């Protein structure tokens, strides 16, 4: 995953301006901001509200409604673990406990070394090959605690290269 840029109101305004011509521009803007900065800074709220002629409350409400948008920077890698039924049928609950234990963090938290943030998701569409995960958007099938360790190590190597 590309390193995120530090928050900049000027840069954010530029990104917002690129999207204002869209019908229903709020979500595309929020996705673009999060892709650039790794999170949606509180400073973006008035900028979006001004650009789209919305109230700050409407923009804030939108950001907090959706699970994807975060208000603070995450770890260097994003680990999404599927908690839905098809993965449960393959023992995902037990594997998740093991993974969270090894990483030393809980759901929605970042590891102490800042390397990974763990988020629960409900279905990745890999339901015949569960348990499933996404690491920085890359799918992992037949997940185990060991295979997650390997995949994370590999992602870290690729990021360094």
């Amino acid at each position, binding site marked *: 995953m590309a390193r995120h840029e530090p928050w900049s109101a000027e840069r954010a305004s530029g990104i917002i301006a690129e999207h204002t011509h869209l019908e*229903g521009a709020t*979500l595309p803007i929020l996705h673009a901001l999060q892709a650039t900065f790794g999170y949606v800074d509180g400073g973006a709220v008035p900028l979006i509200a001004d650009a789209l002629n919305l109230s700050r409350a409407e923009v804030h409400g939108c950001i907090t*409604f*959706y699970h994807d948008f975060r208000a603070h920077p995450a770890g260097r890698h994003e680990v999404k673990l599927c908690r839905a039924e098809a993965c449960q049928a393959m023992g995902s609950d037990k594997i998740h406990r093991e993974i969270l234990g090894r990483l030393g963090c809980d759901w929605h938290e970042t590891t102490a070394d800042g390397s990974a943030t763990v988020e629960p998701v409900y279905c990745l569409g890999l339901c015949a090959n569960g348990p499933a995960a996404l690491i920085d958007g890359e799918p992992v099938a037949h997940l185990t605690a060991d295979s997650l360790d390997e995949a994370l190590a590999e992602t870290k190597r690729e990021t360094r290269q």
Partner: protein
Amino acid sequence: MSVTLYVPRDAVALGLGANKVARALFAGAERRGLDVTIVRTGSRGLFWLEPMVEVGTPEGRVAYGPVKVSDVDALLDASLTTGGEHALRLGDPEKIPFLARQQRLTFHRCGVVDPVSVADYRAHGGYRGLEAALKLDAEGIVAAVRDSGLRGRGGAGFPAGIKWNTVMLAKGEQKYVVCNADEGDSGTFADRMMMEGDPFNLIEGMTIAAVATGATRGYIYLRSEYPQAFATLKEAIANGIQAGVLGDDILGSGKTFHLEVRLGAGAYICGEETSLLESLEGKRGIVRAKPPIPALKGFLGKPTLVNNVMTFTAVPWILEHGAKAYADYGMGRSLGTLPIQLAGNIKHGGLIELAFGVTLREVIEDYGGGTRSGRPVRAVQVGGPLGAYFPDHLLDTPLDYEAMAAQKGLVGHGGIVVFDDTVDMAAQARFAFEFCATESCGKCTPCRIGATRGVETMDKVIAGIRPETNLKLIEDLCEVMTDGSLCAMGGLTPMPVMSAITHFPEDFRRAGDLPVAAE
């Protein structure tokens, strides 16, 4: 002469190492001086065989799978490029029984073609449906969809022709076609597979809908959990504009259709069509009260046709082959084919497109080969997290909208999740409430509050605190949620809960009623 190798780029195949296999094949072929071209396809949906590599030979395609990077050298040494013998050789992929016994009307190109190539799509029969549609007037197209008996494949099963007709007749300067690609149900992946493997089928179906209803703009609302599908759709749409199958003059007809893909943001509720429209407008995904129906006042208050990926992708075949040909498949009022997704604890999971009417048992045993764990099947959830859990004695129920409803279940989006005998049904029932509490949009009280009270009460049952009394309370709560919720989220959460309690009572009464003081 160059040999073509087909390596899937479907998310399942990627999750099992397909990119590494593709790189190893390319490097290994180069070392051996073999001239190969690698085409990245979608998946045929035989997921236990992924990554499944296919080779184009003069006698047709030959498949190998599941291929690991460590197999690549041995495969190349065994003359993979000419279809040579090897332990992983599967032969003609279309003769693999799992696939050969299906009726692939909607998925016939998926896993075969280069998903982002308009030329490859057309070489495999693509755009014949739109060409046929352009020879008809709007009424003629809508009549074909109506006469095919096609019902909304997202879950509700509403007759597609009626919806199309309403939007066609609606007055408005600007109309929209919106595809619901927020496939959030656990155990479903048909939409994902289609968008990654044959996105032009969706684009063609939506274009036919636009021509029929008079819409000139369209959106695909895609869930953010599908980054691969997002990339493929964006590439396909860009190539479609280039090739003149999207834009201001589609196929030289003078008709306009502009299509865009938009990402959701992790909210399950946005699969509900009015919540989806709110989200598409840039708001919180809060469910709207109906009426007005979206067909009359949808996106930005304009007439909007909202259909699921599987509904749109059934349409090109119907227009090409005729309504009657489609209606010849299926049973009763469930006509055509259903893309069944077999998932969970299953040996041979994947996509099974069959005429309506096949029983759950046939799918799980004949196609799926039983559980992956090798233990007996105990419970089967059909139709996603809001679908019922079926016990063994109900597995002879046919997959048909009415037959499933008669057993207090639903077909939903066609997902089947198999659990073996280690499943704890009280935990599953609790999860149904927990999921509803997490994903409720919060607009109506029965769903917002009911789900949380449901978790709390189920926790008492699980702890053995007055289980009989608390189960009665849950039954009462479920009745309120069913009758009083604004949409299917709260309205159907009782389905998995009550089916678990009804069919697996032993999991809820492990402790007898304790004295009140214990509470």
